[in-house]
């Protein structure tokens, strides 16, 4: 049978090639973890907690547009050649709308953080392995503190937002309506209160960058202050003063890379340089566009600079001989070439600075500038969220607001003395209030507090309306409609995309 020979060959071929491994149709990605093989151990959960910190950076990277440039501290270097930054400018000019990319990015960043904390908290309820009590406490504490932190950021910038407290696993769960601001604050206070009971105390002088009791107490106090419940903030802040924090002798030391997470640091957003994706780039946003060789020491063509420029208004606010001026603001000298490109030549001190003729001087934020750098557009500068000097000023403010002005002075004067200024002696609460506010503006300049402080202390409309009139007179390119500062503008709009995708949402009035 000749044909049976062929048949044998064919069948052998068919069967051998047809054979396949057991789970032929069950394939999982080999290059990435998936939910099926994660959340299975304490280490998994600890890594998940690390992931919940990461969105802090998404917010910090752009927060200055909304928190400093919106205020009288900072403006921008109008770039007529590239109008791609119009959205940033509109935040400063009070012309922003719900399609602004920055407000959407911040909103997304905060909710990414919230989602990651929700996943951890939900899945922690369902674990089938045994987790040590101490580990669980720390995980729960850090996670709740982060969730509260993200919601505090949201409620101050967007008002009452959808209150997601559980993991979203399908689309229908993603379309919650807005809660009221009161409901959001209640959740923030509950979460911080839980966190305070769970997280570890700081191990000063050197911290890791994680959430500590110091951070939780400070931020919870800040929440109460925002709600004008100063009496509730005082004990929290006082507890922070006993945790071992203290001020550096020199203001600028607080921002040095070698002093990261050290004695003056309550909480900061962590960065490191290198090619592993953990670097910051703040300074490249804060210096003029163009080649950066004569500024950062590294040749790099910066095309997204010119933001967050210190204003004349802020410069004028510094008291004579305030050591913080030189540490906060620097001058970049240069010239325009024939094509109106700015060519930087060198950095000089702002102290008693007068621009020589023929030289163009641009002010820039020096706080986050610590060369030498190794790589272009890549720095290790952290971003401070709370420093101990802020705690002292918060405590001074709370005491003053609760009729204990004399008790407030030592805290205020600790900060002033370090800056090389005379102690304040005023104990009239009405007089002391603007002094403390001014001190906050200078001490915390460019740390993303100014705009929120103006709103919190009901000063935004008078201060920024006056500032707007000055600024419009100074710059011809600003539209007449700019700087229409109204109460509706105290919060930013809910991003347009969210409204489109979730019909349960209602835009904030005025947008």
């Amino acid at each position, binding site marked *: 049978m*000749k*044909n049976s020979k*062929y*048949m044998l060959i*064919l069948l052998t*071929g*068919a069967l051998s*090639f*047809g054979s*396949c*491994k057991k789970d*032929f*149709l069950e*394939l999982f*990605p080999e*290059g990435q*973890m*998936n*939910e099926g093989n*994660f959340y299975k151990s304490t280490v998994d959960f600890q*890594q*998940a907690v*690390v*992931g*919940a910190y*990461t969105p802090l950076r998404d917010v910090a990277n752009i927060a200055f547009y909304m928190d400093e440039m919106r205020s009288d501290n900072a403006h921008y270097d109008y770039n007529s*050649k*590239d*109008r*791609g930054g119009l*959205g940033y*400018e509109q935040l400063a000019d009070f012309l922003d*709308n*719900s399609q602004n990319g920055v407000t959407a990015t911040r909103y*997304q960043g905060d*909710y990414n953080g919230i*989602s990651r904390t*929700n*996943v951890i908290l939900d899945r922690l309820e369902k674990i089938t392995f045994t987790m040590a009590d101490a580990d669980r406490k720390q995980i729960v504490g850090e996670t709740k503190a982060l969730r509260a932190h993200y919601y505090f950021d949201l409620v101050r910038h967007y008002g009452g*937002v*959808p209150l*997601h407290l559980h993991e979203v696993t*399908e*689309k229908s769960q*993603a379309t919650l309506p807005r809660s009221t601001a009161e409901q959001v604050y209640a959740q923030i206070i509950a979460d911080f209160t839980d966190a305070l009971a769970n997280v570890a105390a700081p191990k000063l002088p050197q911290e890791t960058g*994680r959430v500590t009791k110091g951070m939780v107490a400070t931020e919870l106090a800040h929440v109460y202050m925002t709600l004008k419940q100063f009496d509730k903030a005082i004990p929290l802040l006082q507890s922070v003063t006993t945790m071992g924090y203290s001020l550096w002798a020199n203001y600028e030391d607080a921002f040095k890379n070698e002093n990261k997470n050290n004695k003056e640091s309550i909480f900061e957003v962590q*960065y*490191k340089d290198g090619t*592993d994706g*953990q670097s910051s780039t703040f300074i490249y946003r804060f210096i003029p566009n163009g080649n950066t060789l004569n500024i950062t020491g590294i040749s790099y063509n910066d*095309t997204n600079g010119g933001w967050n420029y210190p204003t004349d208004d802020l410069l004028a606010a510094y008291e004579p001989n305030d050591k913080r001026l030189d540490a906060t603001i620097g001058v970049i000298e240069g010239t325009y070439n*024939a*094509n*109106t490109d700015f060519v930087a030549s060198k950095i000089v001190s702002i102290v008693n600075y007068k621009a020589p003729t023929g030289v163009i001087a641009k002010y820039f934020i020096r706080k986050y500038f610590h060369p030498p750098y190794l790589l272009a557009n890549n720095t290790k500068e952290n971003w401070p969220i709370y420093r101990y000097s802020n705690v002292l000023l918060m405590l001074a403010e709370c005491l003053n607001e609760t009729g204990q002005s004399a008790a407030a002075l030592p805290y205020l004067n600790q900060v002033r003395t370090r800056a090389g200024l005379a102690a304040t002696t005023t104990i009239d609460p009405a007089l002391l209030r603007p002094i403390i506010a001014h001190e906050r503006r200078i001490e915390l300049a460019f740390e993303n507090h100014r705009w929120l402080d103006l709103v919190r202390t009901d000063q935004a409309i008078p201060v920024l309306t006056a500032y707007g009139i000055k600024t419009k007179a100074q710059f*011809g*390119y600003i*539209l007449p409609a700019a700087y229409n500062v109204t109460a509706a503008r105290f919060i930013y709009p809910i991003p347009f*995309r*969210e409204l489109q995708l979730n*019909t349960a949402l209602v835009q904030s009035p005025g947008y």
Partner: protein
Amino acid sequence: MGRKFLHYLSGARHLQLFLMLLLLSPFAFAQQSMKITGKVTSSEDRTGLPGVSVKVKGTQVGTVTDGAGAYTLTAAKGNVLTFSYVGYDLYEATVGESSTVNVSLKSKSADLQEVVVVSYGSSRQRDITGAVTKVNAEDLQNLPAAEIGQKLTGRVPGLQVNQASGRPGQGMTFRVRGAASLGSGNQPLIVVDGQPITGDVNLINPDDIESFSVLKDAASTALYGSRAANGVILITTKQAKSGRSTINFNTYYGTQTVLQRGRPDIMNANEFATFMKGYYEDRIKYENWKNPVTGLAEVPADYQNPAQYGEGTDWYNELLRTAPIQNYNLNISSGTDKVLSSNSLTYFKQDGVLRNTGMQRFSFRSNNQYTPSSKVKFGFNIAPTYQIDNNTRGNLDGNRQILVGGEISSPLIPARNADGSYPTRTGSYGMFALPNFLQQLDLMKNKQNSLRILANAFGEIELLKDLRFRTTINTDLGAIDQNSFNSSNYGTAGAPGPSIPSAVSNSNNYTSWLSENILTYKLTKGDHNFDFLAGYSAQKYNRNFRTINGSVFPNDNIPWIAGAATTTGTTNNTAWDIASMFGRINYDYKGKYLISANIRRDGSSRFGKNSKYGTFPSISAGWIISEESFFPKSDNFSFLKIRGGYGKTGNNNIGDYTQTSLVGQTNYVFSSALAQGLSITSLGNPDLTWETSKQTDIGLEMNFFKNRINVTYDYYNKLTNGMLYLISIPYASGYSSIRYNVGEFKMWGHELSINSTNLTGEVKWNTGFNISFNDNKVLSLQDNTPIGGTATYNDYNRTAVGRRIGELFGYVFDGVYKNQQEFDSQPKHATSAVGTARMKDINGDGKIDQNDKTFLGNPNPKFLFGLNNDIRYKNFDFSISVSGQVGNKIMNTNLQNFQNLDGIFNIEKSMMNRWRSPENPGNGQVPRTLSNTTELYRFGNSNWVFSGDYLTIRNISAGYTFTSVPKYFKSARIYLAVNQAYVFTKYPGQNPEVNDSRDNQTTAGQDNGSYPVPRTISIGANINF
């Protein structure tokens, strides 16, 4: 065979039943045999035809005519003999009393008898009950083409083939019966010699192709199950013919040029300087502007005296060139009754009309078939292809990439300095930071080498009479290696050089193997003809890919990453599996009532755990009315068939692993050191499954005047459920999107094709015409939330319930506020001023904002058509083919640059007519240049939307065949051809077929300044030895 897989098969009861049915069918009938002899001649010149296949119908008995056309075989009285020969009509003769059967074959006039390749087999055109169109590659040989799509344009009703871009080897998009999917791909499944291919279709050498079959309706595609919803194109490659040995050499050489029509209508140097002078005058007047360089309120020196500039630099023209295209193809084929072997070698080279771009391809194909006995057949085909893409995969087109970047560069700046060097910046005073794009193009180093091997081997054996078993092993192997190097002169728009040299190396290699095992059985009982098929297959695809980035090179001398100071790299892998079983029953009664039923069951690793398997059935029927006794026998109306089919098919292009929530790296820093973080970064969907199309097709086939005119008409109606789409979800969820089976769409259309043999005498003239109407409607979406149109920039389409898929979306431009009175009385945007752009207040709330965006047009054509004419007279041949489409809209998104009023780009001439003051308001259609007011005019708006109607003369060719040729030659033909001879269109852009997003129907119809499509004039030869 693994347990799981066996289990899967054993679960398939219907396969077992089917096999039993096959085996239990007893049949046998004896007849009186006799020896038949005869001669086969050509009806035209009465000469004997060698190599004609003569078969006793319904048996394997057959032979081939000898050199004189004579044959001998054994048959019984009443048997039907079939005579088939390529290029001639199949002829059937019934054996009567005589032992001599002489026949005369007519060369092909109508395609009724033509054998058409269909899913897992072949069929006569007349017996087909689905919507299938065959195209013979022979008819397309005059078309110089890098891609098979260029050959098919305008040939097949219902198949929309567009040249979306002129990038050599990457331009074509296919769409069967309108858009089929949202974002999961609209490209049909391409099957080469029975093998569904997994890699780039454009690596298939067009010269190796014998024929195409385009399967359009569900009845004809359902055997491809979860991959069939977008239609199927079956490609059959050239095989040797029994009894013939041939050597062919085909070649062409052409030159490509970009036509003047459609070039950007931007300002020359004089005009641009004039515009800029006015721009600064207005800034001084309205904004107290001072030149920061001089501190003076005066127009910058560059623009003070526009008259000094003439035409200036035409950057678009500088980037283009006239480029050659060439092809050399040698085919040696030889066939005996035991062995068929066809081998071909091809070299193709196309230089791009953009300088420093081009591709070349070396391809080889060997198709071999061995028939040791009448019951056994083996085959082995292998086709390696090696393609080199030089810079054609670089950043050539798209927003502010090289081509558009050049267009917006200052015409005041020369392309080269007097000494021949390049100026490195091309922005005049105050302009955007632009590098010299000519320099960037000339310096580009981006090379991709692709090696592709398609191979298959099969064995076929007749187990019992008419019961055949066929097993096939197919492999599709690819290795792609792309290396690019950016030298220190590298720059982009916004970031001109010098820069630190960097390099990227991307490579991947994939393997796809497919094992198919098929049983077929034919059964004829009286007037009942059955044709059974059952099969199973398993396919596995695996791809490894890697990227290496090198940066900080010390200089430009080492283009390899070995020279980089910093190197980062990653590797990864992806895979999918499909296991399937399928079956078909064809039945006909007396050759006039035809029924076909198909079923396929697919299991796929891509589907979520809740829905691993899908079943895709179809049924179709045909009735050849002209065979009925009541049908008047007339040469004028010689054939009439009505057919209809219904079936279910799927689309599984959902990406690998999308059913699983993925945990991604979300690292952070503690104590100044990296801390490993992991978080769910993409939301999976365990319910994810194929998208299902249910399609009904009704067709009518008619022939008139002795089959000289064939008319085919089809109506289809397709309902697609569970469109797979990555839908956006609120950020508040912590995620931005989730893949969902989101909605329901309806698509329907009409297709008509007419093929006519107008003249048959000394002058032969054939005409083919086809036209297809398509439309679609979105019936539902997830929560009825529209898709797209939410972002400020680069989001120009919206898919919404009750409308068509991917309609263009944006503001409606309504002129400018000419004066204070208009400004005060009309709705305004937050940034509006007198003289600025006025968009329509669509929602009527008295202000203009993002809620005033609306639908601006349908990117899908209402109908498309093709018209092809072939005329032969003696040794001359002439052909012209035309195709076009009507009713679609194109959004020229490039106008965001050409209508930019910030004084930073070169722009359209029409921008001269801008508003400058109430006394000098321009033409009322162009806004002023006031700072901070111009953005609204840069948003997608109705100004950018144009009709995409076109009619293109695809090809005109004229040839001459030499019949008296020197020794060793059989015949030779030379021809002259013009491709893309002319484009008739009102679309002002270069290419009315443009579609930048290619395969994504939700972002269709956008033109961002793509690689131009040239006209090609070529000369070619076909030589037979």
